[in-house]
């Protein structure tokens, strides 16, 4: 962590706390959406960026989390219990989904997870007794915690932001622990990791399970935010979007998902002026970026900083090897 990084994070934290006081309700909704999607993107970054397992299932886990919370709270469960339950459920399903990853890699894994996402969508759409099918679930209430109602837009934003801070801190701590280092070893050279005595099977499953759990928790915040969920929100498109967020921000970098989600949420709004052409421009930008800088925006910033010669505190060798940067 260098000085530029610390200043950047401080500015980001202050603006995240101050922004809702300057924004209209729709603006607050947008930054709340950013917070929620960031959590899912952090999870995917763990699976893809750190452990190197390509997954197109993160959108499905957001869906599973959202439906669990919606159904459980409507069945009378308190929100915190439903929240934890959604996380545990996704942890379990993610663990099971990790098993194919033990056998196949790269594009095969991408297709297995793609199939999983489509299957989840079909179940959400067809099992009407449970999920109300295409009619979706309406009127999901925002929780009241310790007498503090999060019903207002601003209150719910701060509740989400708090959750994000806790989860991000937990992820940060985990990546600094031997576990996190094992994930990176898995990405860099699985066979060497195995020969050094790492239980690569368990770590692969773990990477999937924890990443999926974060996806589920993101969904658990998503449902009360939009207050209406339907199967079409959790198609392959969402998984693709989350994947793009991780890559655009900078995969394998801790703050990559924050930036990627910000771009994915805000860019369409800024491009309203282009009237419907914004997806064309967004897609073109991604293709250009992939051609010239596949390390994402953070990778690009890092290179720019290096080029202008900003003084960096000499990083510890181990950190450098991780390639986490910033």
């Amino acid at each position: 962590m260098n000085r530029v990084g610390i200043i950047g994070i401080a500015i980001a934290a202050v603006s995240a706390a101050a922004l809702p006081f300057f924004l209209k309700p729709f603006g607050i909704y947008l930054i709340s959406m950013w917070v929620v999607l960031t959590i899912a993107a952090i999870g995917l970054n763990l699976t893809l960026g750190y452990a190197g397992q390509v997954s197109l299932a993160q959108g499905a886990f957001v869906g599973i989390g959202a439906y669990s919370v919606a159904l459980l709270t409507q069945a009378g469960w308190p929100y915190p219990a439903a929240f934890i339950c959604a996380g545990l459920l996704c942890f379990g399903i993610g663990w099971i989904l990790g098993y194919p990853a033990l056998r196949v890699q790269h594009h095969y894994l991408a297709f297995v997870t793609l199939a999983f996402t489509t299957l989840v969508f079909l179940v959400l759409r067809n099992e009407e007794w449970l999920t109300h099918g295409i009619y979706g679930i309406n009127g999901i209430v925002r929780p009241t915690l310790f007498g503090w109602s999060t019903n207002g837009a601003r209150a719910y934003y701060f509740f989400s932001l708090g959750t994000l801070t806790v989860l991000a801190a937990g992820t940060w701590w985990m990546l600094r622990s031997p576990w996190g280092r094992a994930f990176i070893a898995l990405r860099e050279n699985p066979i060497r990791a195995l020969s050094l005595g790492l239980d690569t099977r368990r770590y692969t499953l773990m990477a999937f399970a924890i990443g999926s759990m974060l996806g589920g928790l993101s969904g658990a915040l998503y449902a009360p935010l939009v207050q209406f969920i339907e199967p079409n929100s959790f198609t392959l498109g969402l998984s693709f979007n989350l994947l793009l967020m991780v890559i655009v921000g900078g995969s394998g970098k801790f703050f990559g998902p924050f930036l990627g989600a910000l771009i994915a949420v805000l860019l369409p709004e800024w491009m309203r002026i282009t009237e419907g052409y914004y997806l064309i421009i967004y897609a073109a930008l991604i293709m250009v970026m992939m051609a010239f800088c596949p390390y994402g925006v953070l990778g690009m910033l890092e290179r720019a900083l290096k080029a202008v010669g900003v003084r960096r505190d000499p990083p510890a060798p181990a950190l450098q090897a991780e390639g986490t940067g910033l």
Partner: protein
Amino acid sequence: MASFIQLLVSGLATGAIYALIAVGFTLLWQTSQTINFAQGEFVMLPAFFILAAMNLGAPFWLAALIGIAVSIFILGLIFKIVIVDPMLRHGVLPLVISTIALSLFLKEVAKDFYSSQAQPFPALVPSTDIHVFGAVVSTQSLAVLAVAIAAVVALHLLLNKTRLGRCMQATAQNPTLARILGIPVRRMVLYTFLINGALVAIASILISPIYLAKFTNGETLGMAAFLAAIIGGFNQVRGAILGGIILGILDNLSAAYISSQYRGAFPLLILVGVILLRPQGLLGRIEERTV
């Protein structure tokens, strides 16, 4: 039994179209490790080229030829030069992301610059029904089947019976060795992209009368191509053909006999089964993993 034959024939017809798309998909993978997530959109687009040519007054046969030519140029040549070439040095994943973005791009372009409404598309032959053993088979299905088989046979002859085809196979199997033997590897790779451009255009002509020309067509078609390629075997042309046909028949039969709500799920279950039990696909070779 009669309805079974009917389902089988229409399944074969759809399966043959899936096979065409999947063959192009595996060709790109074999020669350049390109996983084209936009393959479905590549099939969606030529129909719009053809409709645009017909709007300018061209008769259908001429418009179809123009469509195939434009598709070879844009979806073959331009795709290779603009998207794939700059990405290859970065490895597989950035290219995957780029083709995902490309699929979004093509979909939006078709929607914004042509129409968001489904467009009627002329059929190859007038639609009449033929009665075979009490089953009703449409001439359209038979025409689709005939064209698809002709395309696959032509491709097979090209790949296996000509010098050019054998050079392409050598490139796919071992680029380094092919280069040492004096095969112009880069040109061979380019040829596979051109062939893919032609295959998707033919598939587009065959499928659009059934599905209508719509900008969202690519989603299901692309998925079918992936599934067919993986079920059959990613590194074999005949694997992709087998995969496509299995998929088409299964799709029709499962929708009729098991559950139409979950018709989309059966191919996926087969996919997961194949990947777990025989990851190289039904006809595929095992690819060695590099350390």
